[in-house]
Structures are given as structure tokens and as C-alpha cells.
């Protein structure tokens, strides 16, 4: 192990090629993962913001909040189910938002809500709203009025919130009456009656398990289907497809990382067969030599993670806001885990060759 460490320290150039290749792979993995996380966050922020564990859609909605409608009667029925602590309405309207001084309208997801959640305080007064910070880059300032849709429904921004985008559109949180007004005025086809929401967010009483309560609601209230938030996120249009496409790309990249390590150490092992033969002759076991090789692979991967991580962080700072990129510690941790696993598996490919090196080859050579 000491030998492997010293080789790495004293002959860094020998490992530079593999190190650089892995660094670029780390950069690619973190940027891809960061884009995926940002896209998913932009698509699912509305649901991820919910502190309640359950959400109820109408049964005919095919698990889509956009198609769902929950009437006042259904809402009351849900609230009356034993075990329900709180049942609050939630509505969405995807509209163009006109910001003063901008020629092009911004895409805005207007949320009508009744109770605070993880990221948004209690509903503001009618005509006011909390805007997602992503709208700030569009030129919106605190106190500005954003006009929604062709009807130009005005909403004055009184505070900033983060991480609540939906369907890649910036969130704007308003009270239920303002949401209905904006929806009915701008999308008459989708107009809703007073008291109607698109979904109801349910908080169980203490001691009641969400899945049991979901079943109870579906039984007690006609024509509704209750989902956990995770199920609802999976049901959002495009989310699963985005995740599977990116997972395929990221998975393939990990495989490439493993191949890079495998090829590099296979070549390195061939190059130092003579030295390894001498070491075996003087009593080094195959396992000791293999452990040294593994140590080198892991340290190169760690170095690549540090440099690649720093590069991706730097890149995130210079990229324009329009490029969605979220760097999170959990993404870095999963990338680190995957890369280390790839390095371990890749280096293990050379074990067989090390085991087969004949110590007798050290004697009689020129």
C-alpha cells in the first residue's frame, strides 16, 4: 500500500491521463445530475413544497392535477373523514405573466392555496402574491404588479419564495379567490365554480398513517383518488420520462468511468509486469499488490471528485440563470458513490492479471 501511495505521489504524471478523464466524467455527471435536479425541481416544486403527506384528485383526472377538479361538496367530505386533521384546497393556472418593462411575457404558474406549506407563508390578501425568486431574473421586483394572461389580472408581489416552480414555470402564490378570478378570466374553458379547487392537500391527525387515511378518504368520498406526495410527483407529466432519460445517461457515464479505470489500470499493469514479478519474487502477495492498485484507483477517483466538484461549482456560478442547474450535496454524494464503485469495479478487472504474474519471471530476465 505504501508503495502504491508513493508511486502516486512521485509519479503523478503517470496517472494524469486517467485523472483528467475521470475529472471530466465527474464534471459531466454533476452537470447532468444538476440539470436533472433543476428540471425535476422546476416540475415538481409545487408538490415538494407541501408539508402535508397526501393529496386528493378527482377520480377521472388520471392522476393529473391539471385535469382534476374537487368540488366544495367533495372538499367538505374529505375534511369530514375521521383521521383528517386538515384538508386545504389547491389550484393551478398556467398563465403568461406580463412584467412592466419587459416585452415578452414570462411563464407563470399561479397557485391558489388556503394554508401555508414548507416554503410559502399563509395566503396573502386578494390581489397580492408571493413570487418565486426565478421571476426576479425576469425583471420582477418586490412591490411590482404582474399582470396575468390576456385579461391582465393584476397581482402585486409582496414577498419572495423559492423552490416552488411547476411544469418549468415560475410559481406565484395567491389566495383562492384571486386564483379563481385569474383562471376564469383567462381560461374560460377551465373555469371553476366558487369553492372548487383542483386538489385538496390532507394532513392526517397524529397517529394516523397516511396510507390508511388515503384508503379511508377514497372509500368515504365519491369520485376522488388520494395519493401520497411521492406518488403524485411520479404522476406529473414528463417527470418519470425525464428521470429515466437522465438516469440512462448518468448510468452509461458511470459505466464509461469504470471502463476508463479498467483500461488504464490494465495498461499500467501490463507496463509494470516486470516490477510486479520482482515484488512477487521477494514475497509480495497478489492481494497486497491488488490492494495497492485499488488504493490508486480510489485516490484518483477522489482527486477527480474534488477537482470535478470544484469545476462544476465554478461552472454553476458563471452559467446564466436561464440554464437550469442545481448542485446539491445529495447529488454530489450519489456521484461520489457511483464513481468510487466504478473505480473499484474497474480496477478489479486487473486483479486476474496480477494473480497470474509468475514470480519466477523475475529470474533469468535480461
Amino acid at each position, binding site marked *: 500500500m505504501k*508503495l502504491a501511495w*508513493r*508511486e502516486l505521489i512521485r509519479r503523478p504524471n503517470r496517472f494524469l491521463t486517467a485523472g483528467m478523464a475521470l475529472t471530466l466524467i465527474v464534471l459531466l455527471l454533476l452537470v447532468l445530475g444538476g440539470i436533472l435536479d433543476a428540471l425535476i425541481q422546476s416540475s415538481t416544486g409545487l408538490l415538494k413544497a407541501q408539508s402535508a403527506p397526501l393529496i386528493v384528485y378527482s377520480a377521472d383526472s388520471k392522476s393529473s392535477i391539471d385535469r382534476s377538479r374537487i368540488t366544495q361538496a367533495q372538499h367538505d367530505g374529505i375534511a369530514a373523514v375521521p383521521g383528517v386533521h386538515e384538508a386545504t384546497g389547491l389550484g393551478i393556472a398556467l398563465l403568461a405573466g406580463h412584467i412592466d418593462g419587459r416585452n415578452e411575457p414570462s411563464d407563470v404558474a399561479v397557485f391558489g392555496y388556503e394554508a401555508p406549506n414548507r416554503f410559502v407563508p399563509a395566503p396573502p390578501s386578494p390581489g397580492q402574491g408571493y413570487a418565486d425568486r426565478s421571476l426576479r431574473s425576469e425583471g420582477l421586483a418586490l412591490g411590482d404588479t404582474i399582470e396575468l394572461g390576456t385579461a391582465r389580472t393584476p397581482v402585486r408581489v409582496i414577498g419572495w419564495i423559492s423552490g416552488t416552480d411547476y411544469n418549468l414555470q415560475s410559481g406565484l402564490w395567491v389566495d383562492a379567490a384571486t386564483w379563481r378570478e385569474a383562471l376564469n378570466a383567462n381560461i374560460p374553458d377551465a373555469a371553476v365554480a366558487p369553492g372548487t379547487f383542483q386538489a385538496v392537500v390532507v394532513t392526517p391527525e397524529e397517529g394516523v398513517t397516511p396510507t390508511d387515511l388515503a384508503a379511508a378518504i377514497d372509500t368515504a368520498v365519491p369520485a376522488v383518488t388520494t395519493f401520497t406526495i411521492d406518488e403524485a410527483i411520479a404522476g406529473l407529466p414528463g417527470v418519470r420520462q425525464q428521470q429515466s432519460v437522465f438516469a440512462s445517461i448518468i448510468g452509461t457515464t458511470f459505466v464509461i468511468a469504470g471502463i476508463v479505470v479498467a483500461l488504464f489500470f490494465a495498461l499500467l499493469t501490463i507496463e509494470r509486469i516486470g516490477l510486479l514479478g520482482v515484488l512477487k519474487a*521477494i*514475497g*509480495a502477495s497478489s492481494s497486497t499488490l491488488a490492494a495497492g492498485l485499488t488504493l490508486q484507483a480510489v485516490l484518483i477517483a477522489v482527486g477527480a471528485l474534488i477537482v470535478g466538484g470544484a469545476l462544476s461549482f465554478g461552472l454553476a456560478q458563471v452559467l446564466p440563470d436561464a440554464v437550469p442547474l442545481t448542485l446539491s450535496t445529495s447529488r454530489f454524494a450519489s456521484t461520489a458513490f457511483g464513481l468510487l464503485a466504478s473505480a473499484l469495479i474497474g480496477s478489479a478487472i486487473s486483479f486476474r492479471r496480477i494473480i497470474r504474474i509468475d514470480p519466477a519471471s523475475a*529470474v533469468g530476465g*535480461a
Partner: protein
Amino acid sequence: MRALDMQDVRKTYGSGDNEVVALDQVTVTVGDDEMIALVGPSGSGKTTLLSIAGGLLSPTDGAVVVGPHHVTEYSRKELTRFRREFIGFVFQGANLVPFLTAKENLLVVADVAGKRGKEIERRAETLLEELGLGHRIKNTPPQLSGGERQRVAIGRALMNEPELVLFDEPTSALDSKLGEQVMELIRDEVKGRGTAAIVVTHDTRMTHYADRIVEIHDGRLVA
């Protein structure tokens, strides 16, 4: 006591019509502090004999005993341990680890055995000083001359206080003057420690340093 006792050792490669006999009924002994020169033409079996004596190869037939160790009964794993603890090797062209200093090249023997500590480091330094390399402790092989590299290799072979040291053409890469110096050093170190040694050489000018000359032709010892 004998440092090496090889009885009726036979080593063959292949089988049937393709069988090649590398060693044929070789019986040889080396005394406790005896140094023998093993000479013979290329392909005569010198390397095979050396490899079997050092536990690098297993014989097809016969018995090999090094000190109290019945080498022919050892598994591959036991042979690795046996070489690590009881045998010293000096290879052709020194074969040092190029990125390690002279001292670290000696410590490799302790490293592969998982041994460390101040005492081992002191032993490496003392050995290098004895070999006239006290001022070269921190130099790597590319910074050393051919003779110095071979002296480091001798130090490495003596690091584990072996019962038997095997030299494979130790002077082949050196000019005759340097070769003489290295052979003199080998004799002094081996005799000074009372260690047994086998020196394989082509160069008959070097054989007078040995206590005895053993000649091998076509896998058989010449009486």
C-alpha cells in the same frame, strides 16, 4: 546444518513427446555459510535450479529443503511467505523500484511483510552504510550508477536476514572492474553474515570468489 539440500530434483515442462527436461535428477547441497558459483551455458538449467531453490518454482519430482523448511511441501501462499522471510534475491540488472529511494528500496522487503518501525529503518540505513552507500540513501535508482544500483539490490536481498541468498547474474550488466568489486562485496557480505549463497554466473572470471563451483549442462550437474 545445510542451508540447501536438493535431492533428485527433476523439472519438466509439457508432457509426452513435447516434454522438455529442464532439470534431471539434480542433487546439490549448500552448507550454512557456503557460497557456490553455479555456472553453465545458456539453457543449461541454472535459472530453473535457482528458481526452485528460492521457492519461485516447484519441482516436478524430488525434495528441496532450505534450512528447516521442506519447500516442496509448501502451498503457493506458504511459498510466498517463505520467500519473504527466508530468501534473499539479487536479480539481473538490479531490478529496483525506480521511484523509491535507495533506503525505501530496502524497506520494500519489510513493507510487503507488513513490518515497520524505527528498528527496521535503522537496519536499512546500516546496511546501506556497510555497502558504501551511506551518502546515497535518498537517491533514486536513476540517480545511481550501475554498481551502486547493484549494491542497493544486495542490501535489499540482505534486509530480511535470509538463510539463503540467490544471485542471478549479478555482474552481467557491469564492466569487469565493477563486476570484480561487486563480487568482492557479495563475498564479504555473505561471509560476514555466515549466510549461504548461490551465485549464477556466465563469467568464469568471477567464480574464484566462491567456495565451490557447480557446473550444470543440459539440466544435469557435471561432476
